[in-house]
């Protein structure tokens, strides 16, 4: 069985700073992966590389069996490789329903239609509303995104990604800035997503990581240090040294 997403020899440097060195990962279908590592380890850069927002200097990226290294960011989304952002990257003056409907229309390829009114596209609107309702945002979806509570905006990030019908979903610190007691709810929502979906998420809270990830990748200084199950990672001496032991966590 081929993996959902894999890379070979992925390489990226900014000037003299190596941000990704010889990255080789393989994400099997339907697995929940956590990507952890100290600040500056290159986690977000890896997501940028995978989604085509940053071009690698060398190496290749495969989505299923297809080489997507040369494809544009939006084409990768169309193929099912989708991300969310660590810092809210939303449409401030659109309401949540408009935003998610837009993502549905883009997926359907109907966003170029200018001669029909938006309300005519009932199925797209129903689908967008369904996604928002499943994330508990039904009551808030008429409000401009910028007026929503921060935690709700984090959920809109995920709703936008889901509207593209991803096969592989990369979540860059989905709970960033969300109080600890709320982040569990957010991850419960993520855990409830379809089993067919392959998920890689960056997260700093180790409780969350060990609770929701079925496998963990540890990155340090642009390299992959180790990959394994939570139980293996928890006892790995290298991880304890450079990450869990080296940095005091709150």
């Amino acid at each position, binding site marked *: 069985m081929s993996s959902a997403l894999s890379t070979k020899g992925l390489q990226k440097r900014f000037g003299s700073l190596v941000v990704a060195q010889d990255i080789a990962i393989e994400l099997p279908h339907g697995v929940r992966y956590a990507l952890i590592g100290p600040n500056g380890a290159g986690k977000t850069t890896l997501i940028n590389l995978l*989604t085509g*927002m940053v071009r690698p200097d060398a190496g290749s990226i495969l989505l299923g069996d297809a080489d997507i290294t040369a494809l*544009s*960011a*939006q084409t990768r*989304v*169309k193929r099912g490789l*989708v*991300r969310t*952002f660590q810092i809210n*990257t*939303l*449409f*401030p*003056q*659109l*309401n949540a*329903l*408009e*935003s998610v*409907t*837009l*993502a549905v*229309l*883009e*997926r359907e390829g*109907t*966003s*170029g*239609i*200018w*001669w*029909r*009114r*938006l*309300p005519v*596209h*009932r199925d*797209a*609107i*129903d689908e*967008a*509303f369904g996604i928002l309702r499943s994330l508990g945002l*039904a*009551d*808030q*979806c*008429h409000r401009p995104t910028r007026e929503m509570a921060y935690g709700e905006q984090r959920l809109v990030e995920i709703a*936008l*990604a889901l*509207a*593209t019908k991803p096969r592989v979903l990369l979540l860059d610190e989905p709970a960033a800035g969300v109080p600890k007691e709320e982040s569990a709810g957010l991850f419960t929502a993520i855990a409830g997503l379809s089993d067919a979906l392959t998920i890689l998420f960056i997260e700093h809270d180790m409780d969350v990581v060990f609770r929701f990830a079925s496998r963990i990748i540890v990155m340090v200084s642009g390299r992959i240090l180790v990959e394994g199950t939570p139980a293996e990672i928890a006892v790995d001496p290298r991880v304890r040294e450079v990450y869990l032991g080296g940095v005091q966590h709150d």
Partner: protein
Amino acid sequence: MSIQANNPHQILSAGLGWTRLEIIFWLALLLPFVLTPSYLSLASQIAITALFAVSLDLILGYAGIVSMGHAAFFGLGAYTAGLISKAGWGEPLTGLVIAAALAALVGYGMSFIIARFRHLALIMITLGLGLLLHEAANSASWLTGGADGLQGVKIRPLFETFKFDLYGTTAYAYSLAGLFLMFLIARRLIHSPFGLALRGIRENWTRMPAIGADSQAHIRKIYTVSAAIAGVAGALLAQTTETVSLEVLSFQRSADVLVILILGGAGRLYGGIIGAIIYMVARDQFSGVNPQYWYFWIGLLLIAVVILLPNGILGGLSRLTVRWGGTWR
């Protein structure tokens, strides 16, 4: 507003219908025929400028694409309409269509450059385009008449019946009809899925590719439409005044339309129309009193509006009208 939070179709239909205020507004635009019949030429020029502002609003107000050289397409339409009538084809409606088609064609060509840039680079590129066409028209005086303007434009009566008379009755009716028809197209466009995509580009350029959107294709499309509408506005001016001066391509015209749109309120469709009315009437009045210094007052007005009403005059008004139950979207 009384929107049911749990009916998604109602949420997305809100504000799309014609409001009473809108209907009154369009009917009021017929008043000059009876109230100020001696100002119909001015009214016609206001309608044309309003249409030009609407064309800019589609790219600036909705897609967030700045243009400092939009007169390029206005002038292109004006010269096209003028030249084909001079060549013997004086029928106005086909003239409009040809002018729009040529402006659209050039706009489409330019859009491949426009779609790749943002912000400062875009300002420079559009400025350059405007200057380029202005100088080209200036130096090609064998074709355009250069600084003396294009002479000998003769337009046939509208529908072979209504002559373009000195009082401007036909001119205003024609320009107003042109404005209204183009406005209907623009209105439908911004209420469509495509209009939503444009607002998405304006709101967050970087997020669009992450939801699978081809922003550049969207931008190429709206830029072409905007160029065509600007071309219609220019052609209307050439046909109703039966002359084309170099001024139609000037930087001043590009700057004026930007001021008009920001004054009236960008991204509201009516902003350009309201802005054009206020700006042109003010210019007419002020320049009668004090022709040299009238930009002083415009400068003052612009600063005051941007500070006090960041969303333009219409942005300020809409806060009031929402209380009356109408919206100006």
